[in-house]
């Protein structure tokens, strides 16, 4: 009876995960509940493509403020247009794959082994323009420092003289 | 025994080498201890 209940719960528990793409933060938070399940994940590709073994690589996917490592084919990773970093929003990926809370193949890391990877959005570059007020403030402060130095010199001369 | 303060740069490479060797030995010891403890429990 209990087994049946568990099986039903598991079946229903993982079905919505497949139907709706998850946010990484939720995936990590649910951890063991989803271990070994197929999941669908949506997030921004960030960082670097890092070697996992001869054929597969790691791509990190970020959503909800948390990143997760996704193992995929090297060829698949090469089709990702942008990896997020400073002044660059990485491509939005939708990944279907198997979630492991402690992957024996990869040193116990919490990871996702991708079955399919879809690029939903190419990502974009954005500008981070300098603000003039900062320049103005620093100039004012440097001027203040210069006055203080001049004052110190004068006071010191006075002190040395007598 | 009085503390000696002579030149600490004289055996720089040798000292660095021995440091790395000692750390490697310590890490090896820790690895063995961890694995043995793990095996014992399993």
């Amino acid at each position, binding site marked *: 009876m209990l087994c049946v209940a568990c099986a039903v719960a598991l079946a229903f528990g993982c079905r919505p995960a497949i139907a709706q793409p998850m946010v990484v933060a939720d995936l*990590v938070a649910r951890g063991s509940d989803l271990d070994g399940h197929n999941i669908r994940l949506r997030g921004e590709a960030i960082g670097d493509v890092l070697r*996992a073994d001869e054929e597969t690589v790691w791509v990190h996917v970020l959503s909800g403020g948390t990143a997760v490592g996704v193992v995929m084919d090297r060829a698949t990773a090469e089709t990702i247009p942008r990896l997020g970093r400073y002044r660059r929003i990485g491509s939005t990926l939708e990944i279907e794959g198997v979630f492991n809370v402690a992957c*024996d193949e990869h040193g116990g890391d919490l990871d996702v082994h991708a079955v399919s990877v879809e690029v939903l959005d190419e990502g974009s570059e954005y500008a981070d323009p300098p603000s003039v007020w900062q320049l103005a403030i620093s100039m004012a402060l440097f001027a203040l420092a210069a006055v203080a130095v001049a004052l110190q010199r004068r006071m*010191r001369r006075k002190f040395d003289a007598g | 025994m009085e503390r000696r303060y002579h030149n600490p740069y004289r055996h720089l490479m040798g000292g660095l080498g*021995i440091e790395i060797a000692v750390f490697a030995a310590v890490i090896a010891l820790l690895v063995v201890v961890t*694995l043995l*403890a793990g095996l*014992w429990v399993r």
Partner: protein
Amino acid sequence: MWIPLTLREVRAITHYLGVLTIGLGFAMSVPLVTAVLFGEWNPALDYLVGIAVACALGTLLMLADVTRPAISHRQAFLISPLAWLIASAVAAVPLALSGNYAGYLDAAFETVSGLTTSGLTLVQDLDHMAHSHNMWRHLTHLIGGQGIIVAAVSLAVGLKGGGAFSLYLAEGRDERILPNVVHSARFIWVVTAIWVLVGTVVLGVANLVQGMAFSRAGLHAFWITVAAYDTGGFAPQSLSTMYYRSGVFELLTVFLMLAGAMNFNLHADLWRGDYREIFKNIEARTLFGNMAILAGFAGAGLAATHFYSANSELLRKGLYHIISANTGTGHQTLYAGQWKDLGSVAFFAVILAMAFGGMVSSTAGGIKSLRVGVILKSILLEVRRMLSPDSAAVRTSFHHLTDRELTPQLVSTALTVFVIYIATYLAGGLIGAAYGYNLDAALFESISATANVGLSTGITSPTMPTGLKVTYMVLMWAGRLEFFTLMALGFAIVISLRPKRIVR
């Protein structure tokens, strides 16, 4: 008798705080150059503002006393904690402007954590942070790990009189390496430079093998090296060292952590060609023995949970965190929410490892293995006393750089510090629990802050209560300076403001 500070003393202290503030402004030229090299113009202005604030504040403070005053022993003990405070406040300016922090308080938390080589972080969207800001975050480890005062003393910036050595002591460094304190401070920088160079090259190669582009591989290697060697714990990606997905990379960082947890005197003895010192030294023996025992517990505890089934996982999830914790580093290969997966035995082994900490006169925090070793020796001595005949005078000695006799004075000092650390760990844990967190997680986080480790169960986040942020900042500051300096400051302020009631 308590003697209140004179106005003249306060003015001299203020003057030297100004000198140190300007020094910190100079250090900001490193991230400024980084920003210019990578064309990060907005962050470049953040550092220009930072330098301007440091220069303006520094020169104004220096006006307090233009007579080039000499500093006394007691002034030195007041300059040190204030220098750490003012350095954190000024260092936080560019980070507060970066847009990666919720506000100035979060940025100040970050710089306190960085300078004390803790590694707890309140950064947001770290994965999109500019190179220059990451450079500054990690540079705070380098400045604070070697010591703000050591940095100043090694450059011999305007410090006159016998105060230099007192300053050096006031920063939690209790032995001079060379007769001359300036030479001692420079030696600390030489050791650091060599280890950072070796670490950067080796980790850089590891990153290139993993497929990172050249400039990123080099920068990440430098940052992780500095964070591991200075037992700091910051990392340029939100996943800490797990990001690099390489057992070899993790192994290399372990070497750096161990090097960082070593007493600078031990480095000096080895570099002098006295290779036997590391085997005889009570501190080294205690540290390695302590780690071995805790590694055993971690391995057994982790295996018992069956959460991690492969042997390599016992090492990369168990042993790695024992070493990271015991050396006070705080690099993490787990998500903050995953500590419960380790099981309670491994979890508490990590807590104990954090609490004990590395060696004295290193960049590590915690109670420190010299004190633990001395206390263990004194326990043995008591037992031997019981078992020896009445007429015997039982004595024992230990080896720490030289052979020393275990005196009641030494044991009492070690126990005093031990008790203060334990009390602070518990108090911090209680405060965390009072804010509604689980006691075990709160205790973990409190010890992590006080022992300047930086491992986190996730309590430390931008959304945590402001009171707890301030609490952890105080814990990190107090732990780095080993309490007494801080108490001296507190008492000095009280007796100077209320002289009539206290001074007799």
